[in-house]
């Protein structure tokens, strides 16, 4: 029979890394608190593991902690693997003690022993186990042998009888009240002492009427308000944690290693931090732009050659013209454009970014930028959501759960689409390289950096506007944890991220871009009045588009690209070459020729760049906004806000362009 085992622990102790190691699954991991926001399940031998979101306490304060506690109480878990960070055991023991109070089978897993040792912290697992009264094993979750050790520890945990839950000593008054209540709680489903304590704190949990009444009486007799009681409980837990840590842990590891201090000086120092972050961003973009250039050209040429070969094949088979058109001009053309122009930048930028994430750089950015974000009525954690948005806005919107205050969270959700996602990035790179700087040059990277800074500026502006109109309110308190730096497993991470991203882009290209290409070709064939359906629609939108420095085809492409931003470029080319083929437009140079032929100027390109950053998010993101906020009106606002900003800015640029002419 399968046993359900929960994986719990403070945020950023390596639960997901351990989960992946145990189950062979690939949950995303990152070196910052709050990376995992949803529970994941996986199989490992006879066990069904559930990876819970990180929590600091089982007295639920946040949604994640409620999820974690409810799972432990009612999710059917027979055992808990409690993962602790060896470097901050003093704090993580707090949660271990709470688990001990709640669950009969707890295995304490002290992770990151190697990292703690580097910082001068030594943990005596035997002593720890003795003091805690729970089995303890020390592991390094990233290493493979951890799996076997942990599994055998789990096996022996299930082999022995469940331990009765234990609590730290509470103040005498509280202990007295508990001793009156506990006999009444014998038959309850929840562990007696825990249940009595929570009832005393005034929480409503399922319990018999007699117990509830008795608890209410004791509560009145005790005369403590909720805060006093919570304080008494947390103080008792922390005192006990402190006592155990003193017995089992040597060294404090305070301030981190020399390397950590140096990095902190660079990334959070007064003078260096902001220029250093800017340089880091520029470097990242340069590698992307430069690195994408060659494979992009190769892929373009290769796919065009393959296209020509296929065309000959179709001709040799005497295929009807409509079939060749539908498959080659439509589906294949669109697919090859996505692969050659869109794929390389995505497959380079994202893995590199994952490296920074794993090293622990992202929370430092949030730390550095908290002040300007606070000035706009939000908090620095919004920058974490935005950085996730660089990969995918839907992920960024979900990631906003790390922000505790409801108002601040909504601000971050609504403005996330102002950060261009990976699906829009390559379009930006292509346009900048075609019209403003040579492809693959430092100039192109610099311009892209400027565009990103511009989008950051717009995010500040939009957040400021919202926090002074629709979302007015008090600033919620802000607590951000800065994790120790970790050396990422560069090779493994890059390869995995590269493969993941490539598979994802190809999957999306196949699912969305190819059918879209075929559909466009069909629409291009449908004649109504004096042109195809596409050209007529584009023509109708043209006056509107022109006003904003775009044209009808561009507007139509963005509208049709709603399901996936990656498809905007193939759709646009499909419209421009409606009726003709677009297999020839595989490379950047040919793309440029088509655009110039359609009358694009520098102003047009600039307006398209602006509109690429500032328009409605893709449908997946909009659905995610609805899911996270529960209301369609917020999703509508998340679409309207960037669109209004984008159109406004485009109109201004177009007007200036006309004057300079």
């Amino acid at each position, binding site marked *: 029979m399968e046993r359900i085992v929960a994986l719990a622990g403070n945020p950023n102790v390596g639960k997901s890394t351990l989960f992946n190691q145990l189950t062979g699954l690939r949950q995303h991991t990152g070196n910052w608190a709050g990376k995992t926001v949803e529970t994941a399940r996986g199989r490992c031998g006879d066990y069904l593991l559930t990876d819970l979101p990180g929590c*600091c*306490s089982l*007295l639920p*304060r946040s949604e994640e902690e409620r999820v974690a506690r409810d799972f432990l109480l009612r999710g059917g878990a027979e055992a808990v693997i409690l993962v602790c*960070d060896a*470097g*901050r*055991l*003093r*704090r993580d023991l*707090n949660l271990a003690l709470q688990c001990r109070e709640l669950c009969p089978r707890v295995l304490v897993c002290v992770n990151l022993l190697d990292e703690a040792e580097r910082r001068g*912290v030594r943990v005596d697992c035997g002593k720890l186990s003795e003091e805690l009264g729970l089995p303890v094993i020390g592991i390094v979750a990233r290493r493979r042998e951890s799996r076997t050790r942990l599994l055998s520890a789990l096996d022996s945990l299930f082999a022995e009888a469940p331990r009765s839950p234990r609590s730290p000593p509470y103040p005498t008054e509280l202990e007295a009240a508990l001793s009156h209540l506990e006999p009444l709680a014998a038959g309850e489903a929840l562990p007696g002492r825990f249940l009595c304590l929570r009832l005393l704190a005034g929480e409503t949990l399922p319990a018999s009427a007699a117990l509830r009444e008795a608890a209410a009486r004791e509560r009145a007799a005790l005369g403590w308000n909720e*805060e006093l009681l*919570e*304080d008494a409980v*947390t*103080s008792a837990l*922390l005192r006990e944690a402190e006592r155990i840590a003193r017995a089992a842990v040597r060294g*404090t*590891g*305070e*301030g*981190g290693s020399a390397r950590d201090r140096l990095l*902190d000086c660079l990334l*959070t*120092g*007064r*003078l*260096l*931090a*902001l220029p250093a972050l800017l340089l880091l961003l520029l470097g990242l973009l340069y590698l992307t732009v430069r690195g994408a250039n060659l494979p992009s050209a190769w892929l373009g040429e290769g796919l065009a050659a393959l296209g020509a070969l296929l065309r000959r094949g179709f001709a040799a088979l005497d295929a009807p013209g409509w079939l060749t058109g539908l498959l080659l001009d439509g589906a294949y053309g669109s697919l090859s454009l996505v692969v050659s122009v869109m794929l390389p930048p995505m497959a380079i930028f994202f893995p590199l970014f994952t490296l920074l994430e794993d090293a622990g750089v992202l929370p430092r950015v949030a*730390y*550095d930028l*908290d*002040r*300007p974000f*606070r000035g706009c009525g939000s908090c*620095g954690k919004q920058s974490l959501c935005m950085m996730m948005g660089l990969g995918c806005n839907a992920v960024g919107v979900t990631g906003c759960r790390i922000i*505790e205050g409801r108002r601040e969270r909504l601000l971050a959700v609504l403005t996330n689409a102002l950060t261009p996602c990976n699906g829009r990035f390559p379009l930006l790179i292509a346009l900048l390289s075609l019209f403003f700087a040579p492809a693959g040059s430092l100039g192109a990277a610099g311009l892209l950096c400027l565009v990103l800074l511009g989008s950051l500026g717009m995010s500040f502006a939009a957040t400021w506007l919202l926090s002074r109109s629709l979302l007015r309110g008090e*600033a*919620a*308190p*802000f*607590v*951000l*944890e*800065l*994790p*120790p730096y970790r050396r990422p497993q560069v090779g493994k991470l890059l390869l995995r991220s590269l493969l993941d991203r490539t598979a994802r882009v190809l999957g999306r290209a196949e699912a969305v871009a190819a059918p879209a290409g075929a559909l466009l070709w069909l629409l291009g064939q449908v004649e109504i009045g004096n042109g195809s359906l596409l050209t007529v629609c584009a023509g109708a939108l043209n006056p509107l588009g022109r006003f904003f420095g775009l044209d009808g085809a561009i507007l139509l492409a963005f509208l049709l690209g709603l399901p996936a931003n990656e498809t905007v470029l193939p759709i646009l080319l499909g419209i421009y070459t409606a009726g003709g083929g677009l297999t020839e437009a595989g490379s950047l140079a040919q793309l440029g020729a088509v655009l110039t032929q359609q009358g694009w100027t520098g102003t047009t390109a600039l307006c398209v760049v602006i509109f690429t950053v500032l328009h409605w998010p893709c449908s997946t993101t909009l659905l995610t906004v609805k899911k996270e906020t529960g209301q369609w009106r917020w999703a509508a606002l998340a679409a309207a806000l960037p669109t209004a900003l984008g159109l406004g800015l485009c109109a201004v640029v177009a007007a200036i362009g006309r004057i300079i002419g």
Partner: protein
Amino acid sequence: MRLSELRPGERARVRALKLEGPLRRRLRDLGLVEGAELRCLGRSPLGDPSAYALCGAVLALRRADCSRIEVEAEEWSGS
């Protein structure tokens, strides 16, 4: 004195948390209780928030929140 007055490099022991609501609970969960020892590690480049070492972890807190935490400065013990 208040935690917000603690300068980078200085240590202190917490005397009282004059906070209520979610922040008070959150900080207590993170180990910031009466008697806890902490050290100011530095300030963010724009001056706020500041980073504090506490229970082996590093927390960033804003000045406004820190000004409601009473601490007692401690001499550097060297150990």
